[in-house]
């Protein structure tokens, strides 16, 4: 282990660099902020990715950002994200509002989002107050359109062989592509006379947690690795939310058998460099769910260019596997319930 370089081998696991250990706050815990062990539900508190150094994990986060920015392959895409976020502007909301049925609006939005193949799944849900960070105002827009973009598995899974930079680049690239579509969808909605706003996945000022919204929008279920698993895209995809007050038809949360699968699969927990994934669900902020130990995961995330090993080794991530795996899990469940009844 060097002063600025972490140590990571499959055999010996992960040890953060001495510099990161210096930056990491003593006695602070992201698990506390996330409500690990809490039985009472409350609105979430943002524990990371604030993109400024003025909070306990801020210095460690800045280390991560600067490591990424020092690499042109990654910085290039990050800069594109920044430009779309801060330089391009959504058009004004047209005064004369167009009218159509919620069914038609929903159909048009989904077609629009999927037409250029930058986004591969779309789901819609209603905004819930319980997703909004405790210290933020409830954002305008009753409906949330969640766009999901598949990451290129060949690029993304290079982290298994130790190429974390390519993995990180693929993550940011996917956010940028999703952001481009988000921008297009939000602009189109404004042209129809309805309010819309969007933030790219890497955005600095999300006011709510996107994963629960994506689950409600029927895009997938939470996996053991703490990320969403979709029956179309598996684990390797990225989300972009668009908020609007255009009346839409919501999708429904679906059980695709992830709990049954993750209950027995051990790959992500076994291969996690930081040993942050456990085999049991935990009580977190009033919900019993899969949870990744923040205080173990984030140092590895920072030092290994967003790491992503858990997603790359997840069997659902392999191209084409997710749909068949979903069918298999649901058939198995039907068989079991038939046997017990």
């Amino acid at each position: 282990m060097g002063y600025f370089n972490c140590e990571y081998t499959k055999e010996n696991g992960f040890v953060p660099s001495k510099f990161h250990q210096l930056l990491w706050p003593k006695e602070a815990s992201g698990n506390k902020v996330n409500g690990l062990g809490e039985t009472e539900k409350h609105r979430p508190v943002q524990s990371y990715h604030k993109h400024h150094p003025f909070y306990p994990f801020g210095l460690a986060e800045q280390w991560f950002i600067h490591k990424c920015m020092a690499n042109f392959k990654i910085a290039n895409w990050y800069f594109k994200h920044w430009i779309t976020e801060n330089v391009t502007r959504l058009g004004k909301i047209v005064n004369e509002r167009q009218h159509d049925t919620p069914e038609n609006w929903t159909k048009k939005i989904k077609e629009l989002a999927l037409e250029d193949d930058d986004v591969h799944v779309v789901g819609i849900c209603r905004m819930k107050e319980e997703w909004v960070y405790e210290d933020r105002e409830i954002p305008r827009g009753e409906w949330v359109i969640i766009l999901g973009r598949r990451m290129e598995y060949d690029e993304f899974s290079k982290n298994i062989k130790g190429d974390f930079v390519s993995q990180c680049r693929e993550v940011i690239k996917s956010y940028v592509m999703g952001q481009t579509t988000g921008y297009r969808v939000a602009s189109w909605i404004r042209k129809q006379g309805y309010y819309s706003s969007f933030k790219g996945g890497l955005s600095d000022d999300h006011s709510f947690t996107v994963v629960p919204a994506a689950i409600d929008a029927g895009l997938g279920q939470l996996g053991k690795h703490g990320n969403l698993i979709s029956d179309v895209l598996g684990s390797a995809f990225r989300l972009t939310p668009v908020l609007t007050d255009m009346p839409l038809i919501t999708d429904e949360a679906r059980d695709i058998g992830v709990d049954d699968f993750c209950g027995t699969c051990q790959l992500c927990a076994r291969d996690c460099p930081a040993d942050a994934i456990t085999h049991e669900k935990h009580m977190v902020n009033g919900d019993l769910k899969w949870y990744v130990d923040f205080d173990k995961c984030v140092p590895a995330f920072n030092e290994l260019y967003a790491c992503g090993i858990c997603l790359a080794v997840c069997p659902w991530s392999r191209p084409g596997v997710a749909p068949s795996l979903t069918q298999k899990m649901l058939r198995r469940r039907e068989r079991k319930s038939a046997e017990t009844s």
Partner: protein
Amino acid sequence: MTEFLRWIIAIPLLAVSLYFILTNIRFLLENFRLGLNAGPAPMTIMGGLSGCLGLLILPYMEFTDRLALLWLPLILDLGSLPFYVSLLVLTICQGMGVRLWKNHPDYQTRGNT
């Protein structure tokens, strides 16, 4: 001709610097409005560096006078010197075990467990 070329290169660089200087000030104000919770992130270094480059290329004033002004974009751009000096101060405090945000939620146990 060389002078004309230098104007053409220097002015966009100074304009970029000015853009980032103003944007970073706007972002800081926005961050204060949101209570330092996940407001927009500053664009670091770019404003200061492009300003310095612009000044060096500018065909106006003596070279030494322009050199003496290099601190200006680095100070005015909040994403340059101010940002990195605060990182340095925070790192020193962290290294000394000073908990600058001891009432921050990251240090608190919340709710019923």
